[in-house]
C-alpha cells in the first residue's frame, strides 16, 4: 500500500470510506476549523493521548512520537476548516495521518541506520506501577519493535487502539483475512519473545 499522505488526505476528506454512521467527531472538527477555542481544546483533550500512544508504540521512541503527534495536529489544524461530514471518520483519518508520519520515520531509519537503537521510553514514576510492571512494559516495547512493521501496526491498531477489524483492515488497505493473518503471526511472535512472562497459570 502506498503511504502518500497528501493523496490519502485528499481521499479521506472527500470519500465515505470507513463511514457507517454519524461521526461523533464531525461537529467538534467543524467548530475547531472555524477557530472555536473550546473545540480546539476539546479535540486535543480527546485525541492527543490516542495519537501519542499510537506513535510511541509504532516507533518505540517517546521523543519521536511527540514530534509525530505535533505534526499530526498541525495537519489537523490545516485541514479542519475543510472537513466535510460524510467522508472518512475523523478518528480513522487521524490514525492514517499518524501512521504515515510514523512510516516516514521508519523509512528514514532504514536509510540512515543509527549506531544505537531508539531509547526505550521511560513510563515515568507512578505510585501504582511497580518495578516489575515497568520491566515488563519495556520488554513488551522491545518485542513490539522487533516485529515486522505491518504486524506491529495490526496489533497496535486492534489491541491497543481498539479499532474494529473492518476499520483496521480498511485503514491498512488489506482484507479482514489478511489483517487476521498479520495479527496471528504478530501474536505468535510476541508469545515467543515474551514466553517467560506470558505463561498461563
Amino acid at each position, binding site marked *: 500500500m502506498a503511504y502518500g499522505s497528501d493523496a490519502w488526505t485528499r481521499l479521506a476528506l472527500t470519500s465515505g470510506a470507513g463511514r457507517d454512521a454519524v461521526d461523533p467527531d464531525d461537529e467538534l472538527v467543524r467548530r475547531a*476549523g472555524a477557530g472555536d*477555542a473550546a473545540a480546539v481544546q476539546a479535540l486535543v483533550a480527546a485525541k492527543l493521548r490516542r495519537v501519542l500512544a499510537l506513535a510511541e508504540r509504532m516507533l518505540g521512541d517517546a521523543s519521536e512520537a511527540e514530534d509525530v503527534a505535533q505534526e499530526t*495536529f*498541525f495537519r489537523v489544524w490545516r485541514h479542519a476548516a475543510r472537513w466535510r461530514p460524510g467522508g472518512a471518520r475523523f478518528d480513522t483519518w487521524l490514525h492514517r495521518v499518524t501512521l504515515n508520519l510514523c512510516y516516514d520515520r521508519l523509512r528514514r531509519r532504514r536509510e540512515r541506520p543509527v549506531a544505537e537503537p531508539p531509547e526505550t*521510553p521511560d513510563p515515568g514514576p507512578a505510585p501504582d*506501577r511497580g518495578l516489575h510492571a515497568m520491566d515488563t512494559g519495556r520488554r513488551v516495547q522491545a518485542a513490539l519493535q522487533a516485529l515486522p512493521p505491518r504486524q506491529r501496526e495490526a496489533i497496535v491498531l486492534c489491541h*491497543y487502539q481498539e479499532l474494529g477489524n473492518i476499520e483496521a483492515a480498511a485503514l491498512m488497505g488489506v482484507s479482514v483475512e489478511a489483517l*487476521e493473518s498479520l*495479527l496471528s503471526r504478530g501474536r505468535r511472535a510476541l508469545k515467543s519473545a515474551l514466553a517467560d512472562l506470558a505463561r498461563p*497459570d
Partner: protein
Amino acid sequence: MMTEERFLTLVGAYGADPQRWPLGERAAATAFLDANPELVAACLEAEAALDAVLAAHLTRDPSAAFRGRLVGAAPRQRAVGRTWRWLAGAGLGLGLAASCAAGVAAGFTLAPASVSRLFEPATGQSSSLADPVGDVSAS
C-alpha cells in the same frame, strides 16, 4: 456457524477477551466457548496470558506544556473574522453616514428653488429652473 477452527483463528488473532472479538461473530464465538469449554481451554489460557503481559505496556500522558503548544498552534479564524466583520460594519456605517450627509446637503441646495416653484403662477411658461438656459422657450 462457529467452528472450532474459526474459533481458534479468532482467539489467535484477537486474543482471549471476547470484547476484542469481531462484533459480528462475538455471540457465536461466546456460545461456542460456553458449549466447549474444555476443547478451547488451553488456547484461551495462552492467549489470556499474552493479553495480560501486553497490558503492562503503558504510554505516557502528554504534558500540559505539550498540549498547550498544540492548542496554541490552532488557527484563530474566528478572531480574524470578527475583525473583518467589525471593519466591514464600520465601513457600511461610514457609507450610510456619508450618504445621509450628501442627502441633507442636496436638500438644502435644492430647497429654495423647489419651494419657490410651488408658489409660481400656472402661466404655462417654463420657469428659469425648468429651462435654465432658455432652450425650450426659444424653440
